[in-house]
């Protein structure tokens, strides 16, 4: 569907509220200050996704949650591996090295972080739109960001030439960087905008 500038602004506002909730949840969980960028709303050809996520073969920890309900979509939270390690250390209150690729405890903790972030994002979205939305069980992959994102985009075996998503950068002190993106499914965008009278 064609998206107007006005609708993009509305989506940015949704992103602002949702991501604010998510950042607050992360801050409470880690007992650290978390800053959030002003969300960007992108409607770009998927070939340009690398401009948004950076180098496609950079290893990142990616938590993927499907959003189910009348306005379904995909929520993805990703951190560089070093940041993910800091998050896990903060949660366990330890500085012992952990291998995120194999350590099940660390992986489970990261999934839970993703779960909390996405759930708080969805609470805001539901309050705003009146459309009830539920997160699926989170899935985690630690690997090349490009490889993971292509799998998420292509999961249904189709891909529109333009992907639309809300993108927020989170950063914590010290040295936590993360990025949260929400991709509404095509029909969902219409429903979300409709619920807001747009």
């Amino acid at each position, binding site marked *: 569907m064609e998206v107007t500038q006005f609708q993009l602004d509305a989506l940015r506002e949704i992103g602002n509220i949702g991501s604010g909730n998510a950042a607050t949840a992360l801050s409470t969980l880690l007992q650290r200050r978390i800053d959030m960028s002003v969300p960007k709303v992108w409607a770009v050809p998927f070939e340009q996704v690398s401009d948004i996520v950076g180098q*496609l073969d950079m290893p990142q920890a990616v938590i993927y949650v499907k959003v189910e309900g009348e306005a379904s979509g995909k929520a993805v939270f990703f951190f560089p591996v070093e940041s993910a390690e800091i998050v896990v250390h903060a949660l366990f209150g330890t500085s012992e090295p952990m291998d995120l*690729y194999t350590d099940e405890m660390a992986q489970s903790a990261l999934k839970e972080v993703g779960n909390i972030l996405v759930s708080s994002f969805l609470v805001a979205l539901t309050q705003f739109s009146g459309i009830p939305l539920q997160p699926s069980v989170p899935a985690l992959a630690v690997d090349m960001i490009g490889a993971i994102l292509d799998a998420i*985009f*292509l999961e249904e075996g189709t891909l529109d030439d333009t992907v639309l998503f809300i993108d927020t950068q989170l950063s914590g002190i010290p040295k936590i960087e993360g990025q949260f993106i929400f991709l509404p499914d095509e029909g969902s965008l219409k429903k979300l905008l409709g619920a807001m009278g747009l």
Partner: protein
Amino acid sequence: MSVIITVGMADYKTARSPDLLLTAGLGSCIGICIHDPFLKVGGMAHIMLPMASGSLGGNPAKYADTAMALLMKEIASMGANKSRLRAKIAGGAQMFSFPGKPQILKIGDRNAEAVELELKKYGIPLLIADIGGSFGRTIHFDVATGDLRIRTINHGEKVV
């Protein structure tokens, strides 16, 4: 001095020796590498889905069938002889598995099948198929030697 030519998502490029072709972060997508060892020319396509199935518009380099047609045309225009062409492919991983979901629609496997079918259609021998698994791959292809270097984050690196 050899140059590394980067192939993006849903993109294809050709090269002449000594240049290398690179595509980064293949997940369920597939990197198709084809070369003529005598002329030392070749090409790489980074496809995302199996079949264009008549869908009009959009980027043809996204699909195995339409990308192959474009790549073959360009390789032929560089003077490559069809009977000398050789292929290697990599990618087609399954990055996530959700418990309880059916596995029949795995897009990585469908991509691999479609690519193999296309290669058969053009009569190009497939020398190496490094596909499947649940990890990403970055690949470098040397069009002179046909060497394909496959790098992963946690599953080693090899040249095939």
